[in-house]
């Protein structure tokens, strides 16, 4: 089948997904215009922006943005990192504190909440509408439990409505430490040459764990002196379950989601969470997936430290995280190799360009508030994602 750009036709009723969903530049462009434009996008955590004037540069979809706490108003703002004059990025640093941003090209200066404050040698502009030439603000910015989101769409669901059934999980995450969490430890930076959705899908894919991470399971076995119980739990323990939370969000629970700590080697959260489209929580980590092009992605893995906990406790979170994750970890790079690179190799065979995403479809059962519950190693999270993907892509047409 040749590539079609018609989103509904790319996902069949029996849950086959067409390869062009991952490989097509045209679909990638449409995702940016429709899906990323219409969703609430995670941009930062409030612990990164505590003081008036604090800022952080990041991306909303593919768009470079500066997240700032206004030097005057103390409010959160998300601004396109692009001078209105000739397009240069006005802020280079990853983070810092500034009451204004000065473009290095011709010296145009902006307040850190956006408005144009000064033009150098401005007698050459007798009729310029300066009020209309501030750094472009994303029209909506909102925060839930410290997680800051922004939207390019001026209208739509409130952040709380958008998060919906994902909210209780975000609440638990925000209460991990005695006084909450903070993202002060920096982040692992990953890149791979394949589609961004593969990283989101791989975040809750318990089916792969025993295969891709077999070498890590052998390390665990050596550490605890017996075969680690995780695979048996994934396949047989009924308290391990995947849930389609609606709106594209999904969760994998492996323990009581209210009690906090799973005591395992992979981190502290007793669940993995995907917040549509590109925010994930795994172990003790906030994972921000940054699409760059159809076949290039960057990922930031931010360990979440526990506010109010001892330095030793937080150091242990960091060391545990590093054991599995990051470019030199004993787990994450195996995902890059198999789930992204080898999938990329295989999907060049486009003569038959379909994937099968139907695992456990027959045993999904409805729960309260419209959720769908499935087995731990079923492809419930992937279907949750693509249900919303399809809706978002259609809405954007």
């Amino acid at each position, binding site marked *: 089948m040749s590539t079609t750009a018609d989103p509904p036709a790319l996902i069949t009723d029996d849950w086959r997904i067409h390869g062009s969903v991952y490989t097509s530049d045209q679909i990638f462009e449409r995702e940016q215009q429709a899906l990323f434009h219409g969703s609430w996008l995670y941009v930062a955590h409030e612990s990164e922006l505590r003081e008036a004037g604090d800022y952080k540069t990041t991306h909303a979809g593919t768009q470079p943005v500066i997240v700032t706490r206004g030097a005057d108003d103390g409010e959160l703002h998300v601004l396109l990192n692009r001078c209105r004059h000739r397009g240069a990025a006005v802020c280079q640093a990853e983070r810092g504190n500034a009451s204004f941003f000065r473009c290095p090209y011709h010296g145009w200066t902006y307040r850190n909440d956006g408005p144009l404050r000064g033009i150098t040698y401005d007698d050459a502009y007798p009729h310029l509408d300066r009020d209309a030439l501030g750094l472009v603000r994303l029209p909506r910015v909102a925060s839930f439990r410290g997680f800051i989101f922004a939207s390019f769409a001026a209208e739509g669901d409130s952040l709380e409505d958008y998060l919906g059934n994902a909210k209780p999980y975000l609440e638990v995450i925000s209460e991990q430490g005695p006084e909450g969490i903070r993202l002060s430890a*920096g982040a692992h930076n990953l890149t791979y040459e394949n589609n961004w959705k593969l990283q989101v899908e791989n975040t809750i894919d318990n089916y792969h764990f025993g295969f891709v991470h077999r070498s890590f399971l*052998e390390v665990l076995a*050596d550490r605890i002196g017996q075969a680690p119980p995780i695979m048996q739990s994934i396949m047989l323990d009924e308290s391990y379950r995947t849930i389609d939370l609606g709106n594209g969000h999904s969760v994998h629970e492996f323990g009581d989601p209210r009690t906090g700590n799973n005591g395992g080697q992979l981190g502290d959260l007793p669940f993995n969470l995907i917040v549509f489209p590109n925010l994930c929580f795994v172990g003790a980590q906030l994972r921000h997936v940054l699409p760059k092009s159809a076949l290039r992605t960057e990922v930031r893995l931010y360990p979440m430290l526990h506010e109010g906990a001892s330095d030793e406790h937080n150091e242990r979170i960091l060391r545990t995280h590093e054991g599995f994750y990051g470019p030199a970890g004993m787990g994450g*790079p195996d995902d890059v190799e198999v789930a992204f690179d080898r999938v990329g190799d295989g999907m060049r065979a486009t003569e038959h360009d379909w994937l099968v995403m139907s695992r456990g479809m027959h045993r999904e059962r409805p729960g309260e508030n419209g959720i769908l519950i499935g087995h731990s190693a079923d492809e419930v999270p992937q279907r949750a994602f693509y249900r919303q993907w399809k809706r978002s892509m259609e809405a954007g047409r």
Partner: protein
Amino acid sequence: MSAGETAVSAAGQVAVDGGAAGAGAKEANAAGAAAAGVAAAGAAPTFDAVRTAEAAAFLYLEAELLDDRRFDEWLGLYSQDAVYWIPQGPDADPRRQVQLMLDDRRRLAERVLRLRSGHAYSQDPPSRTAHLIGNVRIVGEADGVLTVASVQLITEMRKGRQAQYTARVLHELAPVEGRFSIRRKEARLVNGDVPLGNVTFLI
């Protein structure tokens, strides 16, 4: 300790007496003679050619074991209380910030176990590497433990792709039974804080 701190090795010891310790003595003599030439030309007046050559020969040995994938022998170079650190960025504080690696001896052994398991897909096929070591200097000594600075250029070839990693490296080498034992290795990659794909070969 940083690579920028002043060398404290004893001044004026440029004699080449063939007393290189442990493995690699032959290479040490050759390197020592070359280094002594540099010192005689006045480039490094406090240069201890013999001990520098001994340290360099040991770094070459470590590199060779890594490049030959002789991981058990490589692990044997490390003391039981060894620390192996690859910082993520130039200002990385390991107590407060995430690192690429900050391993104790146990985790180093786990890495070797993983690499030998046959199921470490990120090293299947394995990276082919060559470490080129230069700028070797003894930059500290305390209780017989040498701190040795070097720059290592690591070329990696894997799946038809060539990558280059450059690290400013510090080793703390303790003399144990006529040879060195690595107490600490710190490899500051010049590209440690940019997005990377797969750094699962050992640096």
